[in-house]
């Protein structure tokens, strides 16, 4: 099922969807799935299941650190299918976020088939632009999966047209020029980018990069169809003294963010 359906439901409630990112495999595969369930229980609408990767050029220090530790702990690509199954069963949309090489290595068609079978909604591909994504687009279409490509403040009208025309599910608007990580403010560029993107598509437009607090979620939720939070959630786990404490901090932040998107437009 496309996550667009989830976002439509949120829109009917006059609020933005809350999308939370966690990498599978940190602190362990089971631990990460437990954390994803906490997100869902705390009001997250769509879980972005991250694939830890050795060379994450779009990620800042927090997500890099979690990826390194997850890989050291022995996470494998196939663990995301387990996570997708569990997240989906918990009632949230299960989108996988991955750099391209792991999918390429696994086999694009085989990956799409296995992801669909596990109840995954589709993929967010930070280093795959539609121009290079012919195999993925074909496989995603064949298996009824979402294709979430990114747009950025630097995107020209031509690029916005080219990218949004290939998206399904939503369009991922990166709020700032830069890598993932909490920021004091989510720049003015985000609002403008969402408006510019809407000129090219009727798809939901969700904003990520830099959102870490309920207030920021409320602010972004006023103009975006979804608010994406990554590093701030991951940090709850990477900086915790124990797994229990990590889940507690995670639940608390997720509830704050969920409250944020709910008051954003009221």
């Amino acid at each position: 099922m496309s996550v667009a359906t989830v976002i439509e439901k949120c829109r009917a409630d006059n609020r933005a969807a809350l999308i939370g990112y966690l990498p599978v495999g940190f602190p362990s595969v089971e631990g990460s799935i437990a954390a994803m369930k906490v997100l869902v229980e705390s009001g997250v609408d769509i879980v972005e299941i991250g694939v830890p990767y050795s060379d994450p050029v779009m990620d800042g220090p927090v997500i890099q650190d979690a990826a390194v530790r997850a890989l050291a702990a022995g996470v494998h690509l196939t663990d995301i299918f387990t996570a997708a199954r569990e997240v989906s069963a918990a009632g949230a949309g299960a989108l996988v976020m991955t750099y391209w090489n792991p999918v390429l290595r696994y086999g694009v068609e085989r990956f799409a088939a296995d992801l669909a079978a596990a109840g995954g909604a589709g993929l967010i591909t930070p280093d795959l632009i539609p121009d290079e994504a012919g195999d993925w687009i074909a496989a995603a279409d064949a298996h009824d999966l979402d294709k979430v490509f990114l747009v950025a403040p630097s995107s020209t009208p031509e690029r916005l047209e080219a990218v949004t025309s290939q998206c399904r599910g939503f369009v991922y608007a990166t709020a700032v020029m830069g890598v993932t990580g909490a920021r004091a403010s989510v720049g003015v560029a985000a609002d403008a980018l969402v408006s510019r993107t809407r000129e090219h598509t009727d798809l939901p437009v969700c904003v990520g990069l830099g959102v870490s607090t309920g207030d920021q979620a409320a602010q972004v939720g006023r103009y975006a169809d979804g608010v994406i939070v990554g590093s701030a959630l991951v940090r709850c786990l990477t900086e915790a003294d124990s797994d229990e404490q990590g889940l507690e901090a995670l639940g608390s932040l997720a509830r704050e963010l969920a409250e944020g998107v709910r008051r954003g437009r009221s």
Partner: protein
Amino acid sequence: MTTTSNVPAYGRFGGFGGRYVPEALIPALEQLEEVWRKAVVDPEFVGELERLQRTYTGRPSIITEVPRFAEHCGGARVILKREDLNHTGSHKINNVLGQALLTKRMGKTRVIAETGAGQHGVATATAAALLGLECVVYMGRKDTERQALNVARMRLLGAEVVAVDNGSKTLKDAVNEAFRDWVANVDTTHYVLGTVTGPHPFPEMVRDFHRVIGVEARQQVLDLVGRLPDAVLACVGGGSNAMGIFHRFIDDRSVRLIGFEAGGEGVESGKHAARFSAGIPGVLHGAFTYVMQDEDGQTVESHSVSAGLDYPSVGPEHAHLLESGRAEYRPISDVEAMEAFSLLSRTEGILPAIESAHALAGAMKVGRELGPDAVLLVNLSGRGDKDVHTAAEWFGLIDDDGSPRLPDDDGAKGMGEQQ
């Protein structure tokens, strides 16, 4: 021109290459390609680059025939293309001057670069000083330690050197960090990528800036021996010096093109950077090419005594030359490279970069295979000054604390006795 004969699809060499980067960088890559393609047909740009090559780099670089070294190469004639004599000590300056001029044309004021051995970082710092650009160089922590002298050189030239502590702390992690900087600062910053990989147009553009190596060498060899060489040999890390010397020879079907990768402690040991022996096609740093990776598509760390070859991927055009059968690639072990390093130093009075020593070790093998009638052209891509410390340690000429071991010291060994 053979430039486009092997580029069937946009930004591709055969099936290799492409543009696997975050969308945020696409406008910068489009701008770079547009400015570059206009510049290379603009007499003002071409003239300025040519002037800098002549009056700053010292082009054309000479060729040197090395008969005493050639005695160890089956008696084949061995001719070195002396890129080591360029200003800054390697071929890297060819590409950097081109990109630095493009940076000015794009109205950008800051350049960033990755570096492994430090040669590309030094070249970028040099060009930045020359053209008044701010410069930040990313270098793996491990490489800053084994190439400390080059770190100091970059700082003396006014560049900021950032030691990268992520991942394997070598070249690939420096590239990751440079990409992260670029995404955040692309308005003011040009990423002077140092080799023939990365997203289009870098592989093609960097190759074209280095193509002068082969253009000069081909004529120089013709003038010296009256015919084309039987083989052109070069070391291959990312592969820029190799593409630079290979490219003019691609249509000379009688000339074998042979690249030498870092075999490290041996391909079977797993500690190497022999992408064509042990890698499989995948995506790293923006290009579809050969990548050392595990079953999950995670990049595997490479190993080499040479920081400049210690990279788990390779330029996409090399992947195409391999698959099309036009070029061949072989691994050279650390031990073989250091033996060639020592041999060239002692027989010819030329200290090669350890990277280039891989090509010299290759010449020793290929020369023995082809025999005394053969003519080999070897790209001596860099000089070994930066490697004196590594080589002195390797050959036991200094103690762990860096102090010299003299011949009457207990346990001291001459260079030839220990490898």
